[in-house]
């Protein structure tokens, strides 16, 4: 006979039907509130205008709309920045773990510097100061800003992942004559990927979201496109809802994709 458990508030709320009902109610309240609010403002909803910013059919046939172009730019921007951030982050993590006093000093200084400057200020630094000095354009400034900002966080993920591999693995690698570099490459890093994958996914999602900030230097990505459409049409409600939904769709797809990869990875080891 199962042990009787007391009926608590948490247990009632956690049952699926109650959760679904609550969820639907919360969403309904938000939608209702924004609609009535807009109604009171006398807002003129024009949802029918939105699809043409995704795609349209003209005499030239099928055409991709601005939002899709912007989404693509966001993806390319995020991906480029993420790859660069990963390389930088790995470098900083290895420097920090190198046991060299100088290496550790450089790494810690870099981390503290990057982590304690607001992202927006970092962007201005790259665009208004370093941009003119080194002669790079706004796209490069955007990529560098995001890469540098996120490399700090990613390096901590790498460091934690590397440290979670048991010390005996280093000793075993050393005992068969491997150099430190070989031990990293063949023994330590392959094992730490398992520990790094979940937080790295979180970091990609974080990066995609923070990429919106580059709209302040008018890089033509999703958020900038949204602002442009609004300045042409004044449909701020529809456009921001749509842009938010596109970001949400992108990051959700990514999260699900990665958790599928993770499951496969875990069953392998």
């Amino acid at each position, binding site marked *: 006979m199962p042990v009787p458990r007391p009926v608590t508030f948490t247990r009632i709320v956690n049952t699926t039907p109650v959760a679904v009902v609550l969820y639907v109610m919360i969403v309904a309240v938000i939608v209702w509130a924004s609609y009535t609010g807009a109604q009171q403002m006398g807002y003129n909803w024009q949802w029918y205008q939105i699809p043409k910013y995704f795609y349209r059919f003209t005499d030239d046939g099928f055409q991709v709309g601005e939002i899709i172009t912007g989404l693509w730019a966001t993806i390319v921007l995020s991906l480029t920045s993420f790859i660069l951030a990963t390389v930088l982050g790995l470098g900083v993590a290895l420097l920090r773990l190198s046991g060299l006093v100088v290496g550790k000093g450089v790494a810690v200084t870099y981390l503290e510097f990057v982590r304690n400057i607001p992202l927006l200020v970092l962007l201005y630094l790259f665009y208004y100061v370093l941009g003119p000095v080194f002669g790079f354009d706004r796209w490069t400034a955007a990529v560098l800003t995001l890469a540098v900002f996120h490399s700090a966080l990613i390096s901590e993920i790498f460091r934690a992942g590397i440290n979670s591999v*048991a010390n*005996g*693995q280093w*000793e*075993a*690698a*050393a*005992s*068969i*004559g*491997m*150099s430190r570099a*070989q031990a990293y490459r*063949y*023994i330590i890093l*392959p*094992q730490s990927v398992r520990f790094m994958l979940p937080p790295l996914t979180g970091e990609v999602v974080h990066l995609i979201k923070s990429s919106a900030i580059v709209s302040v230097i008018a890089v033509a990505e999703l958020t900038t496109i949204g602002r442009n459409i609004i300045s042409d049409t004044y449909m701020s409600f529809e456009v921001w809802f749509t842009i938010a939904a596109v970001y949400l769709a992108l990051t959700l797809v990514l999260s699900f994709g990665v958790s599928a990869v993770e499951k496969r990875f875990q069953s392998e*080891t």
Partner: protein
Amino acid sequence: MTKSPIIVANGVGKAFGDFHALTDVHMTVHKNERVVVCGPSGSGKSTLIRCFNGLENHSSGNLTVDGIELYPDSPEIRQLRQDVGMVFQQFNLFPHLTVLENLMIGPMKVRKLDRAQAEATARKYLERVRIPEQADKRPAQLSGGQQQRVAIARALCMEPRVMLFDEPTSALDPEMIGEVLDVMVELADTGMTMVVVTHEMGFARKVADTMVFMEAGRIVETSPPETFFTNPTSDRARMFLDQILEH
């Protein structure tokens, strides 16, 4: 027996801060000699053999292994480790690689053998430790005894001139100790130079040429097993033997 020394420790000491793990250790291991190191826990046995392949740096005295004088961060240490095999208490197999890959990675990446050669060597030694059928499994799928035999094979694949064993059976379930010791006895029969830290006195009686008894970081007694087991010269060794042979 040829008397060419492979490991020569001359007044070796090791301090961790104020704690002296090793004090003034003198020890010589000759080619083809089997030395068993025993003593109570915390006596510095493991620290000593970890010094022999540079996993610990000794802090005083001289230590020469295979003609190479060891000192901290010596550049020759990697070369040395290729010729000095080590088996750990906790096996330390590479969990992300198959058994075969565990054996091949050293020869391929360190010795730079090609894949076919490395695989042939790996299979030869898997045969030697009697688990050829486990080649494609991951370490986690094996029993402790099998894992330790893989670890021995991994060290042997580097074709070492000396094998160091750091309490190889201490982490094993009792019924698996035998299979690992059997492999080690066979290895001893091939003439391998071995330094074994262990509490397995039956094994020691069978294979040791020399018994070394340590306490509190010092070597208290060095004698052939006949003397050591029947008539140890030090009271401390006698007490130790009484303690562990009673059971």
